[in-house]
């Protein structure tokens, strides 16, 4: 149990792609304040996306002032931590001033640099070392882009900080680099939790281009006078190390022990399983599963993703649901028996991430008959998402030598998505716990702040002390589970492979329009 006062207040700041949010919680996780502002983003060219660093800082300060203003006694604030989106950060000069743009995480401008990086660091080897395949969004590629395209700015650059570490630094922390975001650079060796010298060299980078590597929940400094004046935080409050937003969200959901699973359902979906050690089998690199360092110190995670999850539902609403309310369409789908009369949906509307990353994959409805009606097609969309998620659970369980996943913490679940979660529960034959944790990422940051401030002894203590309400959704009856098992094992699991060559032929004839971002 914690030795600290129960009236301590912890702040979490979540700098995301679409919103910047701050929450204040007490040590039990009760929300005391919430503030949010929309994030600005510019698209200077096709495929490019940038934030203005100073605008991001200003927004962060506003949101913090707003949240702190909602708290009766702000002097009780003992800690803050900042979480942020994936492969995004700021290059800084000796005086801590930005030298280049804040390139958004999904920006794909780095084609040439990726080619060069690949030439020196083979994709499979990179994947085995860092847990992720070569892709244009990696931080290393973005830094190489700056080297190539603005050598003057690069020559002035002393250091790169991820957005979360940079905001923390401005608040008063030392320059630091958390390990979950280090896992997204293309330079970080998972097994040792250290920078990989050869990969650094391949990207013409040095260790001291980054802040000092720190585990999640480490105290990386205290709020300075400047930071206090800008935000209203008390001078001297602990600044904790947080990190990559979806990992921090899984932390808030309590997914830190080996085999703990968290399913974060949004426009895209992340299916994360916490691990004690990275999966070493290089065959994992042939799958769409990526790995990274957890924000829980010393721990790891494996992640499968469904790129078009909520996006598939929104598409189906437009394309086949005549734009009727999703709640109506889901209610009607609820009256259709499991299996949707044999209609199946493959949700690769933009690309496939499971069972392999495949930018040329395409979606499909199969098994249509004259008797197929809207409700069955809509249910098939939900079932397709559940089957796709099951691929992630199965791959991770197999490679991590876990027994099957038996419990899943659901983030982003709403009452509206209960049917989706119920189908997922039957398809995975796993109990699903829908967490009432709307601000999971910001709350996770606040919990990491609590570790830094000594409110929690460690990550397990933080997860134990924070009480999150949840609704349990059980798998359906045995015949429903059996129906889904047959559909999954005899059809769905083989569909991607069967359709893959056709998708590729089709995509060569009709290139998929890149809509730019998630």
């Amino acid at each position, binding site marked *: 149990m914690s030795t600290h006062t129960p009236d301590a207040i912890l702040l979490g700041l979540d700098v995301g792609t679409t919103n910047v949010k701050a929450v204040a919680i007490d040590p039990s996780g009760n929300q005391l304040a919430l503030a949010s502002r929309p994030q600005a983003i510019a698209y200077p060219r096709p495929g490019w996306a940038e934030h203005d660093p100073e605008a991001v800082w200003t927004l962060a300060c506003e949101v913090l002032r707003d949240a702190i203003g909602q708290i009766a006694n702000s002097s009780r604030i003992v800690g803050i931590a900042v979480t942020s989106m994936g492969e995004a950060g700021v290059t800084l000069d000796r005086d801590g001033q930005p030298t280049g743009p804040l390139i958004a995480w999904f920006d794909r401008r780095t084609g040439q640099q990726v080619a060069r990086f690949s030439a020196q660091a083979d994709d499979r080897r990179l994947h085995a070392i860092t847990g992720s395949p070569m892709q244009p969004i990696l931080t290393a590629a973005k830094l190489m882009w700056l080297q190539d395209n603005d050598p003057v700015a690069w020559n002035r650059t002393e250091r790169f900080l991820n957005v979360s570490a940079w905001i923390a630094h401005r608040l008063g922390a030392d320059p630091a680099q958390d390990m979950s975001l280090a896992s997204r650079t293309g330079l970080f060796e998972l097994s040792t939790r250290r920078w990989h010298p050869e990969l650094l060299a391949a990207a013409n980078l040095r260790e001291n281009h980054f802040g000092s590597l720190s585990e999640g929940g480490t105290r990386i400094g205290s709020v300075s006078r400047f930071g206090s004046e800008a935000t209203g935080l008390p001078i001297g409050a602990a600044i904790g190390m947080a990190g990559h937003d979806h990992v921090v969200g899984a932390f808030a959901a309590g997914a830190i022990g080996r085999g703990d699973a968290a399913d974060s359902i949004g426009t895209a979906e992340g299916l994360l399983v916490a691990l004690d050690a990275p999966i070493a089998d290089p065959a994992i690199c042939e799958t769409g599963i990526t790995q990274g360092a957890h924000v829980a110190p010393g721990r790891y995670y494996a992640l499968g993703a469904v790129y*078009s999850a909520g*996006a598939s539902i929104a*598409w189906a609403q*437009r*394309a*086949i649901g*005549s734009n009727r309310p999703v709640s109506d369409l889901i209610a009607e789908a609820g009256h259709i028996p499991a*299996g949707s*009369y*044999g209609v199946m949906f*493959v949700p*690769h*509307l*933009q690309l496939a991430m499971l069972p392999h990353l495949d930018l040329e994959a*395409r*979606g*499909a*409805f*199969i*098994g*249509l*008959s*004259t*008797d*197929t*009606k*809207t409700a*069955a*097609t809509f249910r098939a969309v939900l079932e397709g998402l559940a089957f796709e998620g099951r691929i992630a659970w199965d791959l991770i369980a197999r490679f991590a030598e876990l027994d099957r996943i038996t419990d899943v913490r659901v983030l982003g679940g709403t009452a509206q998505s209960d049917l989706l979660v119920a189908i997922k529960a039957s398809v995975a034959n796993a109990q699903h716990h829908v967490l009432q944790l709307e601000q999971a990422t910001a709350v996770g940051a606040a919990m990491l702040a609590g570790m830094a401030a000594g409110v929690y002894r460690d990550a397990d203590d933080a997860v134990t002390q924070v009480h999150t309400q949840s609704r349990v959704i059980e798998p359906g009856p045995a015949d429903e589970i059996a*129906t889904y098992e*047959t*559909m999954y094992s*005899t*059809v769905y699991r*083989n*569909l991607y492979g*069967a*359709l893959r*060559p*056709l*998708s590729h*032929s*089709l*995509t060569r*004839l*009709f290139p*998929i*329009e890149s*809509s730019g971002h998630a």
Partner: protein
Amino acid sequence: MTWLGLDLGTSSVKALVVSDEGMVLASATESYPTLQPEAGASEQDPAAWLRATIRAVQGLDEHRSSIQAIGLSGQMHGTVCLGVDRNVLHPAIIWSDVRGAAALERLNTAIGHEAIVDEIGSPLATGFQAVTLAWLRDAKPEVWNAIRTVLLPKDWLRLQLTGELQSEPSDGASTGLQAVRTRDWSPKMIGWIEADDSWFAPVHASNASAGSLLPTLAAEMGLPDAIPVVAGGGDAPLAALATGIASRDAVLLTLSSGAQVTRFATTPLVDAAGRMHTFGSPLNPEVGEPGWYLMGATMVAGSALHWLRDAVLETSRSIPDLLAAAESVPAGSDGLIFLPYLAGERTPLMDPLARGAFFGLTADHTWRHMVRAIVEGAVFALRDALDLVEAVSGPAGDVVVAGGALRSPVWQQSVSAIVGRPVTPSRVVDQSAMGAALLAASGLTGVPASTIATAWAAFDDPIVPDARAIDRMAELRTIYATLYDRHREQFPTLASTLGLVTD
């Protein structure tokens, strides 16, 4: 001189008065119900056919007085059983009745699918008279035992009009009881189903006079006394005949709820695998006309658009509205492919378990893409049937298309681009009744029916496909073709394994 064509269809009878030049002078339609006394049944009351026919002819008003002869067209395959007094023993069992499914399986097993195809030029199907009789024998022995005569629907109607029992090859073939090579009843088939040769009416030429209109009916209908009634034919071959394809080495593509490929042939060319029909035609090989026709049929064409509208989109918009909206989608539907096997497929797959699919979905696809993809998918399927017909009978000199769907530019563009040749739209409407009228004219004047058909036929300018669209659709078609194979590998047993049957 004018001619009366009577088309006894599935849901209504149409009466058409046609001039010597092939002009439609008057038409009238009267409908009748299909009864479903039990699951799988499709029955009609023959007496209702006669009443509707009388009313339809009465509806022709003053045009009745100049009629010289009557020709008949009829819904094919069906069964009317008559007893010793030519009394109707049982309601007519029409082509859409599926109660004979088990009997069909038994016949295929006992006789052999290949032997059947070799004998009758076609696989058997439920609703064919041969299958219906085999079913009746077990299911309704009291009917079976009383049978003295079995007729097709239009042959029963002609019996009422003239008092004469007759049959002819083009409708007779559709019973599954005529031999494709002789264009006459098959002793083998009749033996296989344990029926009696004496039940079947003698076969005459389709344009032969089959008696004259009985005075009582002439009076009731308001027609001249004792005008000749010619034998007539099945509605499908008569529709094809009326478009004028018999004399121009053309193949006909008909777009309706499903689609058909029809071509006339001078020899009985049979697909041994039974992926299409080869039947006797309503023409006379004795005078050099093609005595057979080949027909491949796909299950789904226009009906898939109704499915999308009613079952999926649940919109009240009209089909022409949907098609107009799809005009903004380029050929190829931005890479969305539709497999149209919503109800299984006939020619050439013969796979009742096939299912439909939308493949190639991206987030940018809308319902407009689905509309266009459905049209393109239906035409891909039709092209497969066309390829089979041409593989069996040789390349056709010309492609004629028929069907109301062709008013839509989306259908026009898709058919021409996917067939990959200019296609010529037929302007003949009410084709089956027109075919019946021209048989009447042929019978009375002695001019071959195919010659009259050529004289009466009218066409729009050919639709010439865009070269790039041809290439694009050819590329897509290779993916389409593989998609069915992949789909079949992954899907076939699922429905039966899981009992995934729609309510």
